[in-house]
């Protein structure tokens, strides 16, 4: 157990370094600081989580665009909207995905990423770039984390 915790912390550190480098290079922080590495830690152990989180991110980003346009809501209020949508989507797909992870934080990750994506979209007037940058960052951390857990024997192919 301690062994896995140490690996999780190592992946978090890797996530921070990769996030930092992506921020310096692209000046966007789409996933926020902690959400992307945490998502990676969960997804490596239970790949199905990417389905519910991916759906939560997509729906929350679209919802924020609509809410922002229709009601002019922004900032912290927009974050609450994203967080609620993310939690509802996660709960709705919990059985379907069949996850064993019991951390409530998992249900928030999609909302955090969606809110940061919304901020980048509004800040830069560009929809595609934030999505592509986040996907690249996520895949980079995912690949490194996969290698770390595989070499430590936490996961097997």
């Amino acid at each position, binding site marked *: 157990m301690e062994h896995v915790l140490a690996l999780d912390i190592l992946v978090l550190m890797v996530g921070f370094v990769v996030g930092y480098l992506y921020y310096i290079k692209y*000046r966007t922080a789409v996933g926020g600081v902690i959400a992307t590495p945490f998502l990676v830690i969960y997804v490596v152990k239970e790949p199905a989580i990417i389905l519910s989180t991916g759906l939560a991110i997509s729906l929350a980003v679209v919802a924020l665009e609509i809410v922002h*346009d229709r*009601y*002019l809501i922004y900032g912290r209020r927009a974050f609450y909207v994203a967080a609620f949508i993310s939690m509802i989507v996660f709960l709705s797909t919990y059985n379907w995905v069949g996850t064993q992870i019991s951390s409530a934080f998992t249900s928030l990750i999609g909302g955090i990423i969606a809110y940061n994506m919304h*901020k980048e979209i509004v*800040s830069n007037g*560009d929809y595609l770039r934030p999505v592509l940058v986040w996907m690249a960052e996520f895949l980079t951390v995912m690949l490194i984390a996969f290698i770390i857990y595989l070499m430590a024997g936490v996961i097997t192919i």
Partner: protein
Amino acid sequence: MNIYRVRPLANGMLARYRENLRKSIYRVLVSGSRGKTGLVLDIYDILYNRLGESGVKVLGKVTGDRPRFRYDGEEWVIDRGDKPKNPMLDWENGGIIAEFPADIYVFENQSIRKYTNGVIHRIFRPNIEIIPNIRLEHAELGETLEEMAHTFASQFYDLEYVIYAETIRENFEATYPILEEYAIKYGVELRVVDVPEGQLDILGIERVYIVQELLDIMGMEPLSMAEFNHIVHHIMARLRPRYSPWGFKYIDIAKVNDPSSTRMVYNYLKRNYSGPIYIFAYFRGDRADRTRFFIPFFEDIFRDTRVEKVFLAGRYYRKVKEVLGGKAVEFYDLEPEDMLREVASNDGLLVFMVNGVHHEVDMVRELVETGPVPAGEEVRSAEASREESGEPL
């Protein structure tokens, strides 16, 4: 006085906001770093005087220390309630648009972050944006001039025209290519204001030429001599030192809180004033980015023989104190009255700089404006003032 109280947008207000925005002909957003408030008010005055009688409605809204707007010849003060420094952009701007239908809206861009800059554009949907200048001021809009240019230019996507008027050559050279790149990308007409070489050292003179350009876009006659004088009068009034009852002249340029603009005003003052100069510089703890941007300016002040002393107040100014060497005086080491007596005895010019929004600055400003306190009345020292506010010493 008319007061507009900011409140949450009810459904009916949202519908009226959308309707009024759709019906408006011009939505002019004034962004950039310096001179936004004065520019908005001058544009409003000129448009209202020209069009008011013909029934065209104009609304000019400014923010800053005194958020307010002018509509139909009347001034309205904006009451933001308990949190005046932390306004809800949607309630304030959406609400005013909803309740005051206009053909021409001229709004000052009140954002100091990339995100809220985007939010303002989405709320206001400008078709003309004026950028009088781009100066290093709020790090969250960009750490460099190039980053700031990207921040402003990335919002060009909905615009038809951009008017750009940066008069500092190096700032222009750093920013213009970026603005041009985005203008081409989004099909926006980018108009650069040409200020005659001989007027470049008058801070804010570009305002005249910006208004000319805007009138041209709107298909109106150029400025008349009376309108020209109206704008120039406003520009020059801000650059004129006032007399203090203490017996010296003073000028408050703390509202000009970016180093490039401060340098321009400072040079103008040096040319037009012959005595020794004393600076009262206040550094806000929550504006460490601004303090950092000002360090090269104070390096030059150290070498400037016209400056006698720089009184430093506020927080986190250690680096500024270092570069100023012997010219630096800790404001907290003396009584405010002693500082003012020294300026008066040397017939100096006292210049307020860097930050103007803080109760300690208000206290010194009030003391300068009201003159010496009659004997017997209590005098509050700077430290007492800090203790009262609960700030750590």
